[in-house]
């Protein structure tokens, strides 16, 4: 029956090829879109976790803190020790942020100034990607500051100029002067205009001695949202070990907006692809229906010879299935080849890095696809085949043989 179904497909070669290519195109579109969405989600995840960590530890209730100090981790050393024991594989980074007014000689700007640890891997990456001019401010440097390029322009300051920081309501000195020692360049213009970094000791001296806003745990080997599941046990273990005085957050809590967007990406694309499969299915239905109509006499003969209704339905459905599976195979072959090419990275022509970064998207996409996404596309193709064949198959099975053989006699 498979041979019969396959040969019947090519009785009307052009019509079958059009339907087959339609299915191929939809499968190609589907897996490329799944791949793009997956890559975009993972790239946004990577950008987020690279900047602020895979896990964050805060003082409990920090989001609702009414003043600066009630949101701080004051037992930072103790927390670090617990983290080192509970999540030894993580790169741990302490960070303190303080709301402040930054002023040059002429202009000023309200923002959040920050200081943090710089573990070697994170520091090297930051310097390579973001330090545009001057030197990196870290360690015991209590007088240097790094500014985003656009922030420096907004304040009308250059390397070597002084910047005055006023941080009221904090617990340190509350005010300090720093020399601009580094200029930073970020793809995301929103990040660049608010980038002001001093060393951790400097900001603790300014705003909160020995305290931290948060601890960040970085897992550079975790690249995708799926892989992030592997560190869920660390989140649970840290929550248990640190107790109710702290909040341990995974990336979904760190950036709930991103989590919401990512959650919607794939379902949105799946629904879009389903719509295209329905459209392709209408074309397949037309092909199968016409093919069945043209062979009414032949089906009459087949039923005369003793074929049962379900056997006739099976013949028609098999033809539809073979057409869709062949189209799916073609679409997959092209799509997977393109994804393999795109896995080395590609850029959208016509989109600048700044534009993409402002939308929270990476400048380079690395395409990848999960096995379930391939199965989903093939599954949709199979469903298309079945639903497209349903009507014509029933029609063929219900043919009255004597009448059918008079049909074209």
């Amino acid at each position, binding site marked *: 029956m498979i041979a019969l179904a396959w040969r019947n497909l090519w009785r009307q070669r052009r019509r079958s090829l059009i339907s087959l290519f339609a299915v191929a195109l939809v499968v190609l579109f589907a897996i490329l879109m799944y791949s793009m969405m997956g890559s975009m989600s993972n790239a946004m995840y990577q950008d987020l976790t690279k900047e602020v960590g895979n896990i964050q530890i805060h003082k409990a209730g920090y989001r609702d803190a009414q003043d600066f100090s009630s949101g701080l981790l004051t037992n930072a050393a103790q927390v670090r020790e617990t983290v080192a024991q509970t999540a030894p594989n993580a790169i741990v980074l302490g960070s303190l942020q303080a709301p402040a007014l930054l002023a040059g000689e002429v202009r000023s700007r309200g923002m959040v100034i920050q200081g943090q640890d710089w573990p070697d891997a994170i520091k090297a990456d930051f310097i390579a990607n973001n330090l545009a001019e001057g030197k990196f401010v870290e360690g015991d440097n209590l007088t240097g500051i790094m500014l985003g390029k656009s922030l420096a322009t907004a304040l009308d300051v250059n390397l070597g100029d002084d910047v005055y920081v006023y941080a009221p309501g904090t617990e340190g000195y509350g005010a300090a002067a720093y020399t601009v020692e580094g200029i930073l360049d970020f793809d995301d213009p929103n990040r660049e205009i608010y980038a002001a970094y001093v060393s951790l000791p400097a900001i603790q001296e300014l705003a909160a001695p020995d305290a931290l806003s948060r601890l960040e745990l970085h897992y550079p080997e975790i690249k995708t949202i799926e892989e992030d599941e592997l560190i869920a046990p660390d989140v649970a273990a840290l929550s248990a070990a640190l107790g109710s005085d702290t909040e341990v957050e995974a990336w979904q809590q760190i950036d709930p907006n991103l989590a919401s967007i990512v959650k919607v990406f794939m379902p949105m694309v799946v629904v879009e692809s389903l719509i295209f499969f329905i459209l392709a299915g209408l074309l397949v239905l037309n092909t199968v229906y016409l093919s069945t109509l043209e062979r009414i006499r032949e089906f009459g003969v087949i039923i005369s*010879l*003793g074929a049962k209704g379900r056997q006739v339905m099976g013949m028609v459905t098999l033809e539809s299935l073979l057409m869709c599976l062949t189209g799916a195979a073609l679409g997959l072959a092209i799509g997977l080849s393109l994804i393999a090419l795109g896995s080395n990275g590609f850029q959208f022509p016509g989109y600048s890095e700044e534009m993409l970064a402002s939308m929270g998207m990476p400048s380079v996409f690395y395409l990848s696809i999960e096995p379930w996404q391939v199965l989903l596309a093939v599954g949709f193709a199979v469903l298309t085949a079945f639903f497209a064949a349903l009507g014509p198959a029933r029609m063929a099975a219900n043919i009255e043989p004597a009448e059918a053989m008079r049909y074209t006699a």
Partner: protein
Amino acid sequence: MSLYEVKDLKKTYQLGDVKTDALRGVNLTINEGEFTAIAGPSGSGKSTLLHLIGGLDKPSSGEIYLNGKRIDQLGKQEGAAVRLSTLGFVFQAYNLIPVLTALENAAFVLELQGISKKEREAKALSALKTLEMDEFKDRRPNQLSGGQQQRVAVARALAANPKVILADEPTANLDSETGQRLIHYMKKLNQEQGVTFVFSTHDPRLLEHVNRIVRIEDGRVIGEEHPQPLAA
């Protein structure tokens, strides 16, 4: 032993406002091993009678018994099962499946029966050999002459080892010599293997070889003859 019993069979066709009585009360018995023709002019109802006893259509009234079992009231699936297990069909227009080879066409009914590929190809090949069509087993219908196609159709009917082969005007589209050859093969099957044949025909070539003729006219059986058939 009677294979078929037909009692007061009637068939009326409704085409728009026009009613046509194709059969007006036919009574008939066909026994195993017969080589019987239902003969009559065009429009006499012979094909209609063949279709009804083949289960391809439902009578308006009357009864049809095949091997003692009533078949005129069977549902679609039961009717298909009876045709598959008991009947073979040969049609005027051959009706081979154009994308299948001669062997695959001959094996088609066996495939519907669920026979394994190896077994059905062996049986189909044997049937083709009987009809002297085995050397053409890999040809498709459009590569065969009319007579060759009809022989493949007979092989298709024969391969499934039916109780009776119903043949509707099997020689109508064949020239004289080809028609005679086909009649020769079918006669041989009847005489050597005891295959029952029931023909619907008005071909005098075929009527010369049958051992019973049921004459039908205007939807009624008007007579029967038991001629001395010519040797095949």
